[in-house]
């Protein structure tokens, strides 16, 4: 429904729109149907449980040489175990992320230096680019709000937070009248030159190249999808 609405607005012709049941483990049939529809852009919105299966099927079945861009809203491609498991299958995919190496914010490098030591001990996501910096930033905002208001009163804190722009390790965060981040910094990044069985490669810049927004842009979009998969 949302796709139909937004496609009207953008003038895009939607050739295939399909949802899937929760915990679907094989997407071969859906990918075959997508390929038969000969789309130029494929937007996938899925959760981590299905991201691996979708990527496998895309690699096995193929999407067709006419596809220019693939990816978009796949949750899971930000998590280290999944990135490691998929390896080279990720190449060419353009997907959302909250942080990729090369994005510069004050304090972020120091945060990851400390995080990596503790993550190894706690056996959690060893890179932790997706959520941990934002959790830390949440703590920073609360700390700044408490210090400024000298209070733990929720109403006072909320009032202060609504009108303040906070300096955090993921950049400045302020809120609009709807409570959303006033200047969103979610990025769309393209996976490039990913090899199999190598976690450390994801620490390097150039493996996930930010294409959008312009403020964080790290490189130009490589297309079509087939070419991007082979690009180094």
């Amino acid at each position: 429904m949302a796709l139909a609405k937004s496609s009207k607005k953008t003038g895009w012709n939607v050739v295939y729109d399909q949802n899937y049941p929760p915990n679907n483990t094989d997407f071969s049939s859906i990918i075959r149907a997508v390929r038969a529809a000969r789309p130029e852009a494929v937007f996938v919105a899925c959760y981590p449980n299905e991201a691996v299966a979708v990527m496998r099927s895309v690699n096995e079945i193929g999407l067709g040489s006419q596809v220019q861009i693939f990816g978009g809203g796949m949750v899971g491609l930000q998590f280290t175990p999944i990135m490691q498991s998929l390896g080279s299958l990720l190449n060419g995919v353009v997907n959302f992320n909250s942080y990729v190496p090369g994005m510069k914010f004050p304090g972020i490098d120091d945060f990851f230096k400390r995080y990596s030591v503790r993550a190894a001990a706690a056996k959690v996501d060893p890179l932790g680019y997706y959520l941990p910096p934002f959790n830390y930033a949440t703590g920073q905002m609360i700390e700044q709000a408490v210090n400024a208001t000298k209070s733990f009163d929720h109403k006072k804190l909320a009032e202060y937070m609504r009108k303040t722009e906070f300096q955090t390790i993921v950049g400045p965060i302020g809120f609009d009248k709807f409570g959303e981040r006033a200047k969103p910094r979610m990025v769309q990044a393209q996976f490039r030159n990913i090899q199999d069985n190598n976690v450390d490669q994801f620490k390097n810049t150039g493996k996930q190249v930010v294409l959008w927004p312009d403020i964080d842009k790290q490189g130009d979009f490589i297309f079509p999808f087939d070419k991007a998969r082979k690009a180094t």
Partner: protein
Amino acid sequence: MFSLELLFEAALFGVLLGCFYAAVSLGLSVAFGLLDVPYVAHPALLVMGSYATYLISSLGIDPLLSGLLLMPIFFLLGMGLYRFYYETFEKRGSDAGVRGLGFFFGIAFIIEVALILVFGVDQRTVRAGYIGSSLEIGDYRFPYRMLMAFAVALLLTLVLTIYFSKTFNGRAIKAVGQDESALRLMGANPVKIKQLAFGIATAVNALAGALLIIVGPVEPAMDRIYIGRTFCVVVLAGLGSMSGTLVAGLILGVVESVVLMTLGASWAPAVSFGLLLVMLGLRPQGLFGR
């Protein structure tokens, strides 16, 4: 967008998917189909087989080979499980079936929770040369992982069919399902025969579990998805028929694949229960049942 070619492709893929469904149902076909034991823990043991495969393959061993290596361990586990079920429930009376259902549900929950505690809720996958690539024949592409499931299902069905029809123990297992008292009169111990059958059913789960993690990522609660599908295949086949299980798996796979392609993916989970209802209404004894 919808075409006959696409339908044909969906049917072809359905055959591969169906063989996979047959492979994961064969163990249940032995335990529930032949022995009449309400083995609802079957899918949980299947997922346990996947996690055990994950552990062994992390040492660099091929996942399919890991599944084969696990079979003797699962065989012993199955024998132990049946002995416990027999001593605590079956031996005690006629309502063993109902109480056994509770027992095996309990086992399934324990396995699920244990897997969550040990491995967490994250998905686990394995790597192998045949995962993520496909065989190209003309315009068609067949994932090697599904071809692997196809081959293993055929092989397992063949081995089990020969075992149950040509060997003494195999025929005794079939006999215990048909007439336990008559078997006792022949001097055979039905409990030991059932224990052997349960061991075989659970050993098959180890290999089928390896296939499960080869075909797609697994997570601890995945057994809930396969309860419907595996019971559908076994009931559709006619309880206890190995070749029938293969045919029923193929029917479920093809119908599910075609429904997914034509009506949409959301309808796919309804296929197994739909088929089950139709079969129970029209032919309660199943396709190959007597």
